Protein backbone atom coordinates (compact mmCIF):
# COMPACT_ATOMS: atom_id res chain seq x y z
CA UNK A 1 0.00 0.00 0.00
CA UNK A 2 2.82 2.35 0.97
CA UNK A 3 4.68 1.48 -2.21
CA UNK A 4 1.57 2.09 -4.32
CA UNK A 5 0.93 5.44 -2.62
CA UNK A 6 4.51 6.53 -3.22
CA UNK A 7 4.27 5.49 -6.86
CA UNK A 8 0.99 7.29 -7.32
CA UNK A 9 2.45 10.48 -5.91
CA UNK A 10 5.48 10.17 -8.17
CA UNK A 11 3.17 9.80 -11.16
CA UNK A 12 1.10 12.79 -10.07
CA UNK A 13 4.19 14.94 -9.75
CA UNK A 14 5.55 13.73 -13.06
CA UNK A 15 2.26 14.68 -14.74
CA UNK A 16 1.89 18.07 -13.18
CA UNK A 17 5.57 19.00 -12.88
CA UNK A 18 4.30 21.62 -10.49
CA UNK A 19 6.38 22.60 -7.48
CA UNK A 20 3.27 23.52 -5.49
CA UNK A 21 2.20 19.88 -5.67
CA UNK A 22 5.60 18.98 -4.33
CA UNK A 23 5.21 21.10 -1.23
CA UNK A 24 1.84 19.48 -0.54
CA UNK A 25 3.27 15.97 -0.78
CA UNK A 26 6.60 16.78 0.83
CA UNK A 27 5.91 14.80 3.95
CA UNK A 28 6.29 11.66 1.88
CA UNK A 29 9.89 12.42 0.96
CA UNK A 30 12.99 13.34 2.91
CA UNK A 31 13.93 16.99 3.19
CA UNK A 32 16.89 16.36 0.93
CA UNK A 33 14.84 14.83 -1.86
CA UNK A 34 11.93 17.21 -1.70
CA UNK A 35 12.48 19.68 -4.46
CA UNK A 36 14.43 17.95 -7.17
CA UNK A 37 14.86 14.19 -6.97
CA UNK A 38 11.16 13.59 -7.51
CA UNK A 39 10.63 16.09 -10.34
CA UNK A 40 13.25 14.56 -12.62
CA UNK A 41 13.62 11.06 -13.98
CA UNK A 42 17.06 9.43 -13.96
CA UNK A 43 17.26 9.92 -17.72
CA UNK A 44 16.55 13.61 -17.31
CA UNK A 45 19.16 13.95 -14.55
CA UNK A 46 21.77 12.27 -16.77
CA UNK A 47 20.88 14.53 -19.69
CA UNK A 48 21.15 17.66 -17.54
CA UNK A 49 24.46 16.53 -16.04
CA UNK A 50 25.86 15.77 -19.49
CA UNK A 51 24.83 19.10 -20.99
CA UNK A 52 26.31 21.20 -18.16
CA UNK A 53 29.51 19.15 -18.17
CA UNK A 54 29.90 20.00 -21.84
CA UNK A 55 29.23 23.67 -21.26
CA UNK A 56 31.65 24.06 -18.36
CA UNK A 57 34.58 25.06 -20.64
CA UNK A 58 32.46 27.95 -22.03
CA UNK A 59 30.91 28.85 -18.69
CA UNK A 60 31.94 32.52 -18.87
CA UNK A 61 30.52 32.99 -22.38
CA UNK A 62 27.21 31.24 -21.68
CA UNK A 63 26.80 32.98 -18.30
CA UNK A 64 27.61 36.42 -19.69
CA UNK A 65 25.23 35.84 -22.60
CA UNK A 66 22.39 34.87 -20.27
CA UNK A 67 23.03 37.87 -18.02
CA UNK A 68 23.14 40.27 -20.97
CA UNK A 69 19.86 38.89 -22.29
CA UNK A 70 18.28 39.25 -18.87
CA UNK A 71 19.49 42.84 -18.47
CA UNK A 72 18.19 43.74 -21.97
CA UNK A 73 14.73 42.17 -21.56
CA UNK A 74 14.20 42.87 -17.87
CA UNK A 75 15.94 46.14 -17.04
CA UNK A 76 14.81 45.96 -13.39
CA UNK A 77 17.33 43.17 -12.88
CA UNK A 78 20.17 45.64 -13.46
CA UNK A 79 19.42 47.25 -10.10
CA UNK A 80 21.32 44.45 -8.39
CA UNK A 81 24.50 45.15 -10.32
CA UNK A 82 25.11 48.86 -9.84
CA UNK A 83 28.48 47.99 -8.30
CA UNK A 84 29.71 46.13 -11.40
CA UNK A 85 30.49 46.98 -15.00
CA UNK A 86 27.89 44.92 -16.86
CA UNK A 87 28.55 46.18 -20.36
CA UNK A 88 29.03 43.50 -23.05
CA UNK A 89 32.40 41.71 -22.79
CA UNK A 90 33.37 43.43 -19.56
CA UNK A 91 35.54 41.32 -17.27
CA UNK A 92 32.95 41.71 -14.48
CA UNK A 93 30.22 40.32 -16.70
CA UNK A 94 32.32 37.35 -17.82
CA UNK A 95 33.51 36.47 -14.34
CA UNK A 96 30.05 36.79 -12.83
CA UNK A 97 28.50 34.78 -15.66
CA UNK A 98 31.13 32.11 -15.11
CA UNK A 99 30.37 31.92 -11.38
CA UNK A 100 26.68 31.40 -12.03
CA UNK A 101 27.11 28.72 -14.72
CA UNK A 102 29.68 26.84 -12.64
CA UNK A 103 27.29 26.79 -9.68
CA UNK A 104 24.50 25.46 -11.91
CA UNK A 105 26.88 22.85 -13.37
CA UNK A 106 28.02 21.80 -9.91
CA UNK A 107 24.43 21.32 -8.80
CA UNK A 108 23.81 19.19 -11.89
CA UNK A 109 26.53 16.73 -10.83
CA UNK A 110 24.25 15.31 -8.16
CA UNK A 111 20.79 16.81 -8.31
CA UNK A 112 19.54 14.78 -5.35
CA UNK A 113 22.05 16.66 -3.19
CA UNK A 114 21.02 20.12 -4.36
CA UNK A 115 20.13 21.41 -0.88
CA UNK A 116 23.54 20.37 0.46
CA UNK A 117 25.48 21.70 -2.54
CA UNK A 118 23.72 25.04 -2.50
CA UNK A 119 23.78 25.62 1.28
CA UNK A 120 26.45 28.37 1.17
CA UNK A 121 24.74 30.11 -1.78
CA UNK A 122 21.40 29.86 0.02
CA UNK A 123 22.86 31.78 2.95
CA UNK A 124 24.52 34.33 0.67
CA UNK A 125 21.33 35.08 -1.25
CA UNK A 126 19.05 35.13 1.80
CA UNK A 127 21.07 37.27 4.17
CA UNK A 128 23.43 39.28 2.04
CA UNK A 129 22.37 39.65 -1.57
CA UNK A 130 18.63 39.56 -0.93
CA UNK A 131 17.80 39.32 -4.62
CA UNK A 132 14.01 39.14 -4.94
CA UNK A 133 13.49 35.46 -5.85
CA UNK A 134 11.05 36.44 -8.58
CA UNK A 135 14.13 37.41 -10.54
CA UNK A 136 15.38 33.83 -10.53
CA UNK A 137 12.65 33.03 -13.07
CA UNK A 138 13.90 35.82 -15.31
CA UNK A 139 17.46 34.52 -15.23
CA UNK A 140 16.22 30.95 -15.78
CA UNK A 141 14.34 32.00 -18.91
CA UNK A 142 17.33 33.97 -20.17
CA UNK A 143 19.55 30.97 -19.49
CA UNK A 144 17.18 28.75 -21.49
CA UNK A 145 17.38 31.19 -24.41
CA UNK A 146 21.19 31.08 -24.27
CA UNK A 147 21.07 27.29 -24.21
CA UNK A 148 18.63 27.23 -27.14
CA UNK A 149 20.87 29.56 -29.13
CA UNK A 150 24.01 27.52 -28.53
CA UNK A 151 22.55 24.03 -28.65
CA UNK A 152 20.19 24.62 -31.60
CA UNK A 153 18.61 21.33 -32.67
CA UNK A 154 20.00 19.62 -29.60
CA UNK A 155 17.69 21.76 -27.49
CA UNK A 156 14.95 19.20 -28.02
CA UNK A 157 11.58 19.37 -26.23
CA UNK A 158 12.87 16.69 -23.83
CA UNK A 159 16.03 18.66 -23.04
CA UNK A 160 13.94 21.84 -22.72
CA UNK A 161 11.54 20.21 -20.24
CA UNK A 162 14.36 18.71 -18.18
CA UNK A 163 16.33 21.97 -18.09
CA UNK A 164 13.25 24.02 -17.19
CA UNK A 165 12.48 21.69 -14.30
CA UNK A 166 16.08 21.66 -13.10
CA UNK A 167 16.41 25.45 -13.15
CA UNK A 168 13.08 25.75 -11.31
CA UNK A 169 14.32 23.34 -8.66
CA UNK A 170 17.64 25.20 -8.42
CA UNK A 171 15.84 28.52 -7.94
CA UNK A 172 13.48 27.05 -5.36
CA UNK A 173 16.39 25.63 -3.33
CA UNK A 174 18.29 28.90 -3.61
CA UNK A 175 15.36 30.76 -2.08
CA UNK A 176 14.78 28.31 0.78
CA UNK A 177 16.44 30.37 3.51
CA UNK A 178 14.75 33.66 2.63
CA UNK A 179 11.93 33.22 5.10
Amino acid at each position, binding site marked *: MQHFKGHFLLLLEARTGNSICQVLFSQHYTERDRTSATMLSNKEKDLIKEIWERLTPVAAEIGADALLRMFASYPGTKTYFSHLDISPNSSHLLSHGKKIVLAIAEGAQDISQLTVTLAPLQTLHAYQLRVDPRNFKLLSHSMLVSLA*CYLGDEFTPVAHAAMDKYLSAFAAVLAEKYR
Partner: protein
Amino acid sequence: MVEWTDAERSAIIGLWGKIDVGEIGPQALSRLLIVYPWGQRYFKAFGDLSTNAAIMGNPKVAQHGRTVMGGLENAVKNLDNIKQTYANLSVMHSEKLHVDPDNFRVLAECISLCVAAKFGPSVFTAEVQEAWQKFLCVVASALGRQYH
Protein backbone atom coordinates in the same frame (compact mmCIF):
# COMPACT_ATOMS: atom_id res chain seq x y z
CA MET B 1 -0.32 53.08 -26.27
CA VAL B 2 2.82 51.02 -26.69
CA GLU B 3 5.88 52.93 -27.76
CA TRP B 4 8.27 51.21 -30.10
CA THR B 5 11.74 52.52 -30.87
CA ASP B 6 12.84 52.37 -34.50
CA ALA B 7 15.30 49.65 -33.53
CA GLU B 8 12.54 47.59 -31.93
CA ARG B 9 10.23 47.95 -34.93
CA SER B 10 12.89 46.88 -37.37
CA ALA B 11 13.99 43.99 -35.12
CA ILE B 12 10.43 42.65 -34.89
CA ILE B 13 9.66 43.05 -38.58
CA GLY B 14 13.07 41.70 -39.55
CA LEU B 15 12.73 38.62 -37.37
CA TRP B 16 9.15 38.01 -38.49
CA GLY B 17 10.36 38.02 -42.10
CA LYS B 18 12.70 35.13 -41.34
CA ILE B 19 10.18 33.04 -39.42
CA ASP B 20 8.47 30.10 -41.14
CA VAL B 21 5.04 30.02 -39.53
CA GLY B 22 4.53 26.43 -40.64
CA GLU B 23 7.67 25.35 -38.81
CA ILE B 24 7.86 27.47 -35.67
CA GLY B 25 4.13 27.38 -34.90
CA PRO B 26 3.84 23.59 -34.56
CA GLN B 27 7.17 23.42 -32.69
CA ALA B 28 6.15 26.06 -30.14
CA LEU B 29 2.76 24.54 -29.42
CA SER B 30 4.25 21.03 -29.15
CA ARG B 31 6.78 22.34 -26.66
CA LEU B 32 4.08 23.94 -24.57
CA LEU B 33 2.17 20.65 -24.41
CA ILE B 34 5.33 18.68 -23.59
CA VAL B 35 7.06 21.05 -21.15
CA TYR B 36 3.84 22.21 -19.46
CA PRO B 37 1.57 19.18 -19.77
CA TRP B 38 -1.28 20.79 -17.82
CA GLY B 39 -1.78 22.89 -20.97
CA GLN B 40 -3.25 19.77 -22.56
CA ARG B 41 -6.47 20.50 -20.69
CA TYR B 42 -7.52 22.76 -23.56
CA PHE B 43 -6.90 20.22 -26.28
CA LYS B 44 -8.98 17.21 -25.32
CA ALA B 45 -10.50 17.16 -28.79
CA PHE B 46 -7.09 16.87 -30.43
CA GLY B 47 -6.77 13.12 -30.04
CA ASP B 48 -3.60 11.37 -28.89
CA LEU B 49 -1.38 13.56 -26.70
CA SER B 50 -0.18 10.75 -24.49
CA THR B 51 3.53 10.79 -25.43
CA ASN B 52 6.00 13.34 -26.73
CA ALA B 53 6.07 11.51 -30.06
CA ALA B 54 2.27 11.59 -30.23
CA ILE B 55 2.23 15.32 -29.55
CA MET B 56 4.96 16.10 -32.07
CA GLY B 57 3.24 13.98 -34.73
CA ASN B 58 -0.31 15.15 -34.03
CA PRO B 59 -1.69 16.93 -37.11
CA LYS B 60 -4.24 18.95 -35.10
CA VAL B 61 -1.46 20.29 -32.88
CA ALA B 62 0.52 21.23 -35.96
CA GLN B 63 -2.48 22.93 -37.58
CA HIS B 64 -3.30 24.86 -34.45
CA GLY B 65 0.34 25.89 -34.06
CA ARG B 66 0.22 27.30 -37.58
CA THR B 67 -3.05 29.12 -36.81
CA VAL B 68 -1.71 30.77 -33.67
CA MET B 69 1.59 31.72 -35.25
CA GLY B 70 -0.21 33.01 -38.33
CA GLY B 71 -2.33 35.21 -36.07
CA LEU B 72 0.82 37.07 -35.09
CA GLU B 73 0.97 38.39 -38.66
CA ASN B 74 -1.87 40.76 -37.82
CA ALA B 75 0.00 42.03 -34.82
CA VAL B 76 3.20 42.61 -36.80
CA LYS B 77 1.18 44.57 -39.38
CA ASN B 78 -0.58 46.60 -36.68
CA LEU B 79 2.18 47.28 -34.17
CA ASP B 80 0.54 50.54 -33.10
CA ASN B 81 -2.89 49.04 -32.55
CA ILE B 82 -2.41 45.54 -31.20
CA LYS B 83 -4.98 45.94 -28.43
CA GLN B 84 -7.78 46.68 -30.90
CA THR B 85 -6.57 44.11 -33.41
CA TYR B 86 -6.85 41.33 -30.83
CA ALA B 87 -10.05 42.47 -29.09
CA ASN B 88 -12.31 39.86 -30.68
CA LEU B 89 -9.79 37.07 -30.19
CA SER B 90 -9.54 38.08 -26.56
CA VAL B 91 -13.29 37.80 -26.08
CA MET B 92 -13.23 34.40 -27.76
CA HIS B 93 -10.40 33.05 -25.58
CA SER B 94 -12.21 34.25 -22.47
CA GLU B 95 -15.88 33.56 -23.17
CA LYS B 96 -15.73 30.57 -25.46
CA LEU B 97 -12.41 28.80 -24.90
CA HIS B 98 -11.94 29.67 -21.21
CA VAL B 99 -8.15 29.73 -21.51
CA ASP B 100 -6.17 30.83 -18.45
CA PRO B 101 -4.36 33.92 -19.79
CA ASP B 102 -1.12 32.84 -18.13
CA ASN B 103 -0.86 30.35 -20.97
CA PHE B 104 -0.32 33.21 -23.45
CA ARG B 105 2.84 34.15 -21.56
CA VAL B 106 3.97 30.52 -21.47
CA LEU B 107 3.38 30.01 -25.20
CA ALA B 108 5.25 33.25 -25.87
CA GLU B 109 8.25 31.83 -23.99
CA CYS B 110 8.08 28.62 -26.04
CA ILE B 111 7.93 30.64 -29.28
CA SER B 112 11.00 32.64 -28.24
CA LEU B 113 12.93 29.46 -27.41
CA CYS B 114 12.05 27.85 -30.77
CA VAL B 115 13.14 31.00 -32.55
CA ALA B 116 16.38 31.08 -30.53
CA ALA B 117 17.15 27.44 -31.32
CA LYS B 118 16.39 27.98 -35.01
CA PHE B 119 18.35 31.19 -35.61
CA GLY B 120 21.13 31.11 -33.00
CA PRO B 121 22.87 33.93 -31.17
CA SER B 122 24.00 35.98 -34.19
CA VAL B 123 20.41 36.59 -35.34
CA PHE B 124 18.60 36.29 -31.99
CA THR B 125 20.81 38.79 -30.18
CA ALA B 126 19.98 40.22 -26.75
CA GLU B 127 18.54 43.33 -28.45
CA VAL B 128 16.41 41.37 -30.92
CA GLN B 129 15.24 39.15 -28.06
CA GLU B 130 14.19 42.22 -26.05
CA ALA B 131 12.14 43.63 -28.92
CA TRP B 132 10.61 40.25 -29.77
CA GLN B 133 9.70 39.47 -26.16
CA LYS B 134 8.23 42.96 -25.71
CA PHE B 135 6.13 42.34 -28.83
CA LEU B 136 4.89 38.95 -27.60
CA CYS B 137 4.19 40.48 -24.20
CA VAL B 138 1.98 43.13 -25.80
CA VAL B 139 0.14 40.47 -27.81
CA ALA B 140 -0.35 38.32 -24.70
CA SER B 141 -1.63 41.33 -22.82
CA ALA B 142 -4.06 42.21 -25.63
CA LEU B 143 -5.33 38.63 -25.63
CA GLY B 144 -6.02 38.88 -21.92
CA ARG B 145 -7.48 42.36 -22.05
CA GLN B 146 -11.16 41.49 -22.54
CA TYR B 147 -11.31 38.95 -19.69
CA HIS B 148 -13.62 39.94 -16.87
